[in-house]
C-alpha cells in the first residue's frame, strides 16, 4: 500500500497498461500488417511479397471509383436520413418523455438486440416484391405496378439507415438531455417563438451530439456490405463488398488491404471536412 502511495504517479500507467497493450497489439500492429500487405505484390499461387507495390493503391482508386463514390453517397444519405428520423424522435423523448424517458429510449436501441443479419433479413421479407409494403405502395400508386423496393438503392439506403440509426439517436439524445431547460425559457423570455428558440438555442446546443452521431453512423455505414448484399443488386455494391470479395473470394490480399486504407483515408477526409464546416469550436461549446 505504501508502495502504491509512494508511486502514485505510476498508478495511471498501471491501470492503462493491460488495456492499452491489448489495443496496441491487436489494433496498431494489425494496422501495420495491413499497411504492409497493401504494398505486396504477387499472386495466390506464387505467394505475395512486399515490394512497395503502390500500384495497388492507384489500382484501387481507379478501378473502384464507382463503389467508393457510392459508399460515400449511400453512407451520407443514410446518415442524413437517420438524422432526420432520429432527431425529432429523441427530441420528443427528451422533452416530452417525462418519467418514461428511459423506457422510450429502450425502443430506440431495441433493433440492436435483434441480430444484425436477422433484422436485415426481416427487411428482405418486409420489402419483398409480394410483401405488404410494396403492395400497399402500389395500391396507393406511390410505386409503379412493376416497381419494387427490394434490390434497389432505396432498400439498401433504408437498410443502412435502419441498422445504424441508434448510433445517431443516442448521442443526440444525450446532448439534448443535457440542455438546461432554463436556456429555452430564457430564449422565449427574449421574444423567441418556439421555432426560433429551437433554431437559435436548442439546436446549436445539441450540435455536439449531432456531430458524434453523424460520425458514428457515417463511418460504419461507409464500410458496410451486408445491406448492399442482402438488399441490393450489383448496381448497389459498395466498397465494403469489394473489400470483402477481394479478401474472401479472389484472395487478392494486397489489393484488399489497399482498398481498406483508401476507404479509411476517404472517411478521414470526409470527417475532417465535416468537422471544419461545422466548426470544431462550436462543438465544444
Amino acid at each position: 500500500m505504501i508502495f502504491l502511495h509512494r508511486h502514485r504517479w505510476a498508478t495511471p500507467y498501471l491501470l492503462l497498461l493491460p488495456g492499452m497493450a491489448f489495443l496496441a497489439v491487436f489494433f496498431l500492429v494489425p494496422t501495420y500488417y495491413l499497411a504492409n500487405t497493401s504494398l505486396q505484390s504477387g499472386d495466390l499461387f506464387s505467394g505475395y511479397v512486399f515490394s512497395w507495390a503502390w500500384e495497388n493503391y492507384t489500382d484501387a482508386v481507379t478501378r473502384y471509383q464507382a463503389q467508393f463514390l457510392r459508399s460515400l453517397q449511400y453512407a451520407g444519405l443514410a446518415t442524413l436520413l437517420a438524422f432526420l428520423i432520429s432527431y425529432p424522435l429523441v427530441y420528443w423523448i427528451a422533452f416530452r418523455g417525462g418519467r418514461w424517458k428511459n423506457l422510450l429510449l429502450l425502443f430506440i436501441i431495441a433493433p440492436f438486440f435483434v441480430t444484425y443479419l436477422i433484422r436485415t433479413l426481416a427487411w428482405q421479407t418486409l420489402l419483398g416484391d409480394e410483401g405488404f409494403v410494396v403492395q400497399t405502395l402500389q395500391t396507393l400508386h406511390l410505386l409503379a405496378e412493376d416497381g419494387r423496393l427490394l434490390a434497389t438503392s432505396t432498400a439498401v439506403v433504408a437498410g443502412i439507415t435502419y441498422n445504424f440509426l441508434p448510433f445517431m439517436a443516442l448521442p443526440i439524445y444525450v446532448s439534448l438531455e443535457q440542455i438546461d431547460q432554463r436556456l429555452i425559457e430564457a430564449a422565449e423570455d427574449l421574444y423567441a417563438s418556439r421555432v426560433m428558440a429551437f433554431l437559435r438555442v436548442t439546436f446549436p446546443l445539441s450540435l455536439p451530439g449531432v456531430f458524434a452521431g453523424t460520425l458514428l453512423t457515417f463511418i460504419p455505414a461507409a464500410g458496410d456490405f451486408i445491406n448492399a448484399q442482402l438488399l441490393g443488386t450489383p448496381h448497389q455494391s459498395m466498397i465494403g463488398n469489394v473489400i470483402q470479395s477481394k479478401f474472401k473470394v479472389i484472395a487478392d490480399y494486397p489489393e484488399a488491404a489497399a482498398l481498406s486504407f483508401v476507404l479509411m483515408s476517404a472517411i478521414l477526409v470526409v470527417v475532417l471536412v465535416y468537422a471544419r464546416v461545422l466548426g470544431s469550436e462550436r462543438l465544444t461549446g
Partner: protein
Amino acid sequence: GGGGGGISAQTGAGGASTEVKQQLADTLVFANWPAYIDKKGSSRPTLEKFTAETGVNVKYIQEVNDNEEWFGKYQAQLSQGQDVDRDIVVLTDWMAARMIRLGYVQKKDKSAIPNEANLVEALQNPAWDPNRDYSLPWQSGLTGIGYNPKFTGGPVTSVEQLLTDSKLKGKVTCLTEMPDTMGLVMQAQGADPTKVEPAAFDSAIDMLQQAVDSGQIRRFTGNDYLQDFPAGSTWAAMTWSGDVAQLQSDTPGLEWVIPDDGGMIWTDNMLIPTGGDVFTASTYMNFVYDPKVAAEIEAWVNYICPVEGAKEELAKIDPSLAKNPQIFPDEETLAQVKLFDAEAADNTDLKEKFQAVIGV
C-alpha cells in the same frame, strides 16, 4: 512471411509425403455444403450407419456455402501447413484443382477404398487429378434454368430469353459461381465453355453486363435463390438441378429445364485437407461408394450420383427417383451439358472480369 508479414499461399507441407498409418481415428470431421446429405428428423442415417460399422464418430459440419468463401477462410492456415481440423471437405472441381495445385490436400489411401471401382467412368480422369489420387466425387449437378410459371406466364427455356425478355425484367437472378453463369452465357452465344477462349469469354461478359445494366438481372446469388422464389422476388433464375425438389416444395409449380443452348455440369469432390486423417477419411470414402449407401444419400439429396450401381439400389427404395433424369441423367441429357474449363475457372483475370460484372 519474414521481414514484416504478408500472406502468401506458398505450397503447403501436405502432398504425399508421410506414411499413412492404417488406424482409424476416433472422430471424422466432415465439412460439407448445407443440405447435402441424407437426413431423417434430426438424425443422419448414413452417418450413423458409418459410426455403427466402424466405431468412428462423425462430426458433420455444414460450413461450405461457397467455394471461395471456404477457401478464404482456411487459406491462411493451409498455406502455413497447419491442421484445419477437417478430415474431409467437399469442393467443386475448379476449387479442388486449386487445392491440389497449392498442395493443401493429402493423397487418399487408395488401398482403403476398394469401392472406388464404382466411380462412373466419365468422372475417372479429370485433367486436374488424372488418377484421382487426391479427390473423389461426392455429387455432380447440372446448372439450368428454374422458373415459376405462375409469374412468367410461360416457359423460360433459353439463357437468351432469361437475359433479354422484358417481361422478366428485374425478376431474374444468376449465379455468383463464375463457371455456372459464364458457362451458360457462353453456350447461349454458341461458344465452348470446356475450353475458354478469351474473346468468347469477353463477349459473354458483355452480354451479361448488358443484362445487368438494363436491370434485367436483379442480382447474383449463391443458392439463396432458394428464398427468392417463394418470396416472389425471383421469377426465373439460373439454378442447380438438385435444388429443384427443394424449390418445388416451397414454390409449387416451379419448373426446371436445361437451356436450349446447353447447360452445365459440375462435380463436387471429397478432399482430405492438410492435417486430416487420411486412413479414416479414405475409409469413409469407401463407405459412401457402396452403392447401397450412395442410393440412400441420393434418395434425399437429388443431385447426380457418381456411384455406379446406385441407380439399381435406389430403384429398390424409390423407383420414381431412379427414373429421374436429373439424378441419373440419360445419354440425351448428358449430351446437353458441358463441363467448364477448370483452369479458366481459376484464372484471376477472368474472375476479376466476372466480379466486375457482379459489382465487386
